[in-house]
């Protein structure tokens, strides 16, 4: 009887099982093996031991391309994820007010996230065009300095990357990418809105009776009740921003331009594999990236005990 059930079960899931073995598990193990090889896809892989990993460590030590790719990725991930938390909560709280036409406001704020990445990238390249772009136009009408966005290597939140005579022109290519990612915040917004809706109304009523103002209600009820979603946002946002590729490839001419300032790990990896045909080195990089993301995720789960409210 049990064998029969096992057979039926395995038969039903066989599409996934076959795909898993051929398109996930085998590639997973193969890339681990190739990370110890020299492999150009034309010949067969040649074992070189730890050479690829040593090369990564050397580049990390002397500030080579890998170190810069890691720094670019970290900047993009940290800035876009933290701003997405702030913006997600702000938008969700605003959009959960009981006003007429709320559904329309919500739809409009969600809309940008359905715009295909290719179209969004084309659009933002022009929105952030230093001369003709809408964003600089708006900045100048309110007497703020125009920014060079995708044509600048500067990062607004990293002062040592600012050009010497910046005159307030400190926003660069990575900040443009952050802006683009915030524009597509819709999915996250829906999750925050759902979480806000799940907070028991009685908590607010009780707080009001105790004389707590709106700010205190937000700090002592809303924020703690949202911590599970904030945690989800941070973990998923981190994983996704490290893997972000299409928009970065598109706005950087497929090269990580300007001057490697948008060469993130996923860009560097793709170019190493499919432009340089250095599959061994690319595989090693992929594994380092995987392990790093895992470690950060585990660390986040550990710290979550102290701040996530269950």
């Amino acid at each position, binding site marked *: 009887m*049990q064998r029969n*059930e096992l057979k039926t*079960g395995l*038969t*039903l*899931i066989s*599409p*996934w099982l*076959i*795909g*898993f073995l051929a*398109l*996930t598990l*085998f*590639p*997973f193990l*193969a*890339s681990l093996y*190739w990370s110890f090889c020299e492999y150009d896809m034309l010949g067969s892989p040649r074992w070189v031991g730890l050479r690829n990993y040593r090369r990564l460590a050397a580049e990390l030590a002397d500030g080579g391309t890998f170190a810069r790719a890691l720094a670019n990725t970290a900047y993009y991930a940290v800035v876009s994820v933290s701003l997405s938390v702030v913006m997600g909560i702000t938008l969700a709280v*605003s*959009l959960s*007010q009981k006003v*007429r*036409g*709320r559904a329309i406001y919500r*739809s409009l*704020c*969600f*809309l*940008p996230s*359905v*715009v*295909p*990445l*290719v*179209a969004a990238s*084309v*659009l933002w390249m022009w*929105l952030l065009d230093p001369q*003709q772009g*809408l964003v600089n*136009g708006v900045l100048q009408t309110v007497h703020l300095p125009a920014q060079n966005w995708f044509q600048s290597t500067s990062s607004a939140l990293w002062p040592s990357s600012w050009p010497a005579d910046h005159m307030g022109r400190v926003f660069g290519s990575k900040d443009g990418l952050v802006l683009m990612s915030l*524009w597509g915040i819709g*999915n*996250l917004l*829906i*999750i925050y809105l759902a979480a806000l809706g799940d907070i028991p109304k009685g908590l607010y009523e009780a707080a009001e009776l105790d004389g707590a103002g709106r700010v205190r209600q937000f700090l002592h009820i809303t924020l703690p009740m949202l911590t599970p979603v904030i945690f*989800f946002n941070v973990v998923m946002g981190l994983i*996704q921003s*490290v*893997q972000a590729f299409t928009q970065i490839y*598109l706005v950087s001419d497929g090269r990580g331009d300007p001057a490697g300032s948008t060469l993130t*790990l*996923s860009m560097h*990896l793709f170019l190493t*594999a499919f432009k340089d045909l250095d*599959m061994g080195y690319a595989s090693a990089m*992929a594994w380092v*990236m*995987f392990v790093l993301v895992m470690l950060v995720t585990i660390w986040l789960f550990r710290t979550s005990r102290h701040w996530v409210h269950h």
Partner: protein
Amino acid sequence: MPDKNLVPVRQKAFWAHVWLLLIAGVMTAPLVWMVLTSLKGPEQIAAAPYSWWPRPWHWENYAKAMQAIPFLRYLTNSVVLCLGSVLGTLFSCSVVAYGFARLRWPGRDLLFGMMIATMLLPWQVTMVPRFLVIRELGLYDSLGALIFPKFFGEAFYIFLLRQFFLTLPQEMIDAARVDGCSELGVLWRVVLPLARPALATVALLEFIAAWNDYGGPLLYLNDPQRFPLAYGLEQFVSSHSSEMHLLLAAAVLFTLPVVVLFFFAQRLFVRGITTTGLKD
């Protein structure tokens, strides 16, 4: 005497609307700008001071954009890609989800856990060997390279469907089994008809994912005859990078179907996101 509370409440609502209009305005301004700019002539785009409204309206930009790239060919490829992907996804994911949801068998939970774990695996880790597997299968440079893997299910959709299947009443499934239905028969006659909303969500999300996919064509396609729109549009970017109006017209045409789908099926989007978390 008017109610004292009435005025502040109204005022509060007024400021709430101002704030919400501001937010919604900022979020949609890029799209409005895209549509309006796609209808301007090149001389107006270059002219200062900046003006939002096209003068005159250059509707011919759209015809020009469609002629500048093999639009119909790309569109056909996109439609084939989307239909094939949706078909493959619906078939594989519903069968697999049923196997995980409504049947007890040894090892099920372990395999299900493994499937969930694969969702956390960055695509970069498997990218290179996966590329070689697809190439070995003789699928390189064909839409098959993008459609074929869809017939093996995707963890996210399987999870979504399983969650839905779990909510169906066990009595109906048992009744069908007693009537002599095979497991596939139960799935086909009882479960799938009840799961239509969930299937629609999966179909919608997969259609859009296939429509938008850029990385897949970049990796697997070489012959321009096989490009879907998402990739063809980018080729247009590199060859016409100075003609903003045409470029944006092409981008509008490419975005339009997704936006229309969104307005018709908002509820499905929301369900897809809230039942399982994020989908990018």
